[in-house]
């Protein structure tokens, strides 16, 4: 199998996987928060901004669900562009304007994902503790290594988009060389 064919086959498989992920993200979010109180303890993520008991009122869960869509929404936008990118690679459109634009958008959105994570944390801590009595409500703000990793990945993807743009120019040059 030649290199282009390998790219096409793998891209097709990845497009299918990410399409499934795109559909599952909102479903899982809704199911998770609405059934939060009944979940097994080991299904509760350890990276929630505050430790919570599994007796959250519906209002708190709905608020947490809304807040969770800040990062989930941006993540879904990232996955949308990944699906588009793999769709183009599947058609062997690798060094084209469309694929470069997808990559550039993806990089920018990953950087926005970093920002969304920073914003979400205090809002999530408020959503999860607002129902508590005064004195037991928490606003948490922080920056973790995971956030920095996301930011760096976004910057790297933008750089790769710039490199792919140079590749596009070279391919166009070659296409117009007789």
């Amino acid at each position, binding site marked *: 199998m030649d290199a282009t064919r390998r790219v096409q086959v793998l891209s097709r498989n990845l497009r299918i996987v990410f399409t499934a992920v795109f559909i599952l993200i909102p479903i899982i979010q809704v199911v998770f928060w609405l059934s939060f109180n009944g979940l097994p303890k080991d299904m509760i993520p350890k990276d929630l901004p505050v430790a919570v008991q599994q007796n959250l009122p519906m209002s708190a869960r709905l608020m947490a669900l809304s807040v969770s869509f800040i990062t989930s929404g941006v993540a879904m936008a990232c996955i949308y562009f990944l699906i588009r990118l793999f769709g183009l690679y599947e058609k062997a459109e690798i060094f084209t304007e469309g694929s470069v634009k997808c990559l550039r958008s993806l990089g920018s959105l990953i950087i926005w994902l970093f920002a969304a994570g920073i914003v979400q944390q205090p809002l999530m801590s408020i959503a999860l503790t607002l129902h508590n009595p005064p004195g037991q409500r928490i606003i948490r703000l922080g920056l973790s290594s995971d956030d920095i990793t996301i930011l760096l990945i976004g910057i790297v993807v933008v750089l790769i988009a710039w490199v792919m743009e140079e590749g596009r120019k070279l391919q166009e040059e070659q296409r*117009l*060389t007789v």
Partner: protein
Amino acid sequence: MAIVINLDVMLARRKMRSNELAQLIGITEQNLSILKTGKARAIRLSTLEAICRHLKCQPGDLFEYVEDSAGKNPD
């Protein structure tokens, strides 16, 4: 582009069609069309040699430099 390609003129002089020349020199009609319409960014020396051989001409017969960009390759 400042370089005008007079391929149509040479084809007319030699009474040869584009598709015939494309087949003789081993490139696609689409590529030859890119050359004829002035969209080409570069030409390989091997292609130029093949064109000159089959049209029995010199490279200078095919290319012309014009100062302004209004000089386009006539169809």
